[in-house]
């Protein structure tokens, strides 16, 4: 338990720094801006209660907001995503449920499962985020285009990070 808390705290700090210091400087065409930090929320354990999940998502979002001066937009998107997470997990759950002591990651559940699960989570987050950011529906299609393109980029990064950072762990 303590071990788990430590692991996720380290992941939290690492992802915030990675997001703020490196990824926010990537803005291809002014459209594509990957938000890898939501990987923290995606990878929290299955057993975590929904209220704690939302609280953590809120803290995560507000810390990113602090650095980007977006004030609550990331937090709102993160909380929304955290709330929908349990439904998405239920939708994708295997016939006999998830094994205990595992987390939603590529190494436990395979590429197909993880790809579909994380894609939906990323899409939900980006959809909420970009539409709150734009705050109007007149630019619906250009905003939607940004959602799609950024989502693809974020998903790509998430999959790569799974292979680079988390796959290496269980080999030890």
């Amino acid at each position, binding site marked *: 338990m303590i071990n788990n808390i430590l692991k996720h705290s380290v992941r939290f700090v690492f992802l915030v720094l990675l997001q*703020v*210091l490196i990824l926010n400087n990537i803005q291809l065409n002014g459209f594509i801006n990957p938000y890898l930090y939501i990987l923290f929320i995606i990878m929290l354990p299955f057993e975590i209660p*929904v*209220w704690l999940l*939302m*609280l953590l998502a*809120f803290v995560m*979002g*507000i810390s990113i*907001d*602090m*650095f*980007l*001066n977006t*004030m*609550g*937009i990331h*937090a*709102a998107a993160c*909380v*929304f995503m955290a*709330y929908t997470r349990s439904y998405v997990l239920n939708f994708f759950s295997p016939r006999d449920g998830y094994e205990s002591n595992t987390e939603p990651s590529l190494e436990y559940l395979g590429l197909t499962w993880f790809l579909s699960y994380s894609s939906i989570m990323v899409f939900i987050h980006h959809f909420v985020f970009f539409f*709150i950011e734009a705050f109007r529906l007149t630019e619906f299609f250009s905003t939607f285009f940004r959602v799609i393109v950024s989502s693809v980029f974020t998903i790509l990064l998430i999959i790569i990070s799974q292979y680079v950072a988390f796959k290496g762990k269980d080999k030890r």
Partner: protein
Amino acid sequence: MINLFRFLWKHINFIFFLLLEIFCVYLIVSNNSFQKARFVSSSNYLAGNIYSTITSIREYFYLKETNDAFALENTRLHNLTRDVFARNSTLVYLVKDSVFKQQYKYINAKIINNSVNKRNNYLTLNRGSSSGIGPEMAVISSNGIVGITKDVSENFTSVLSVLNKNAKISAKIKKNNYFGSLSWDGSDYRLGTFIDIPTHVNIAVGDTVVTNAFSDIFPENILIGKIESFDIKPGDNFYTIIVRFSTNFKNVTHVYVVTNIMKEERKKLEQQSQQNDK
């Protein structure tokens, strides 16, 4: 009533979700109307500190460019100082602009090859004749002398380092102007040998040794180093002085090549008088 609480408890997650979202929306909206909510923005303590640390780290990656810029600036300023102008006194009262006539010109360059461990050391500079460098010009760093240019190609210059058997620098002790000759004995790259100071001269450890105006290469009063120790060999009328170079030959990177504009004139005159003597 019980049913109400049961209902609420059943949907506690959704209520919590709504509360959080309402708070977020409040933040977003208040941010729009009040510019910035004070307690979470990048002006706060934590984010501000992290950003300033990052900036100070990032500055390191631009040190090279900054250095180059400073070297360039220094060169420009050197070209404006009084030392590069020789007094042209005959015209003092006639034309104001000619009170000082420029005698030295500084060109900045970077050392791209260097050694200190051979008996005869040479340096290579990244500038050549296209920048106005010719043979037999002084090379100095901001700390003191470095060497004398030897061979010049279009874009590169080979410099005879002071740490070379063939380098004999005409030098003087700054406080009393007694002059001698400075060379390098090939052992320690930090120490040079300064000879030809008569034993009756009063010198002390720590005295400054600078170039003198006898050579047509180095401008006067360029720092060479400080006296580290001295002794008199038996039966000798001159000191043997060990000088600690002010230039650290092992890490010098930016140098100035000094052109003496009046060198030809002076050389011609000196040759002429020597020929007349014969």
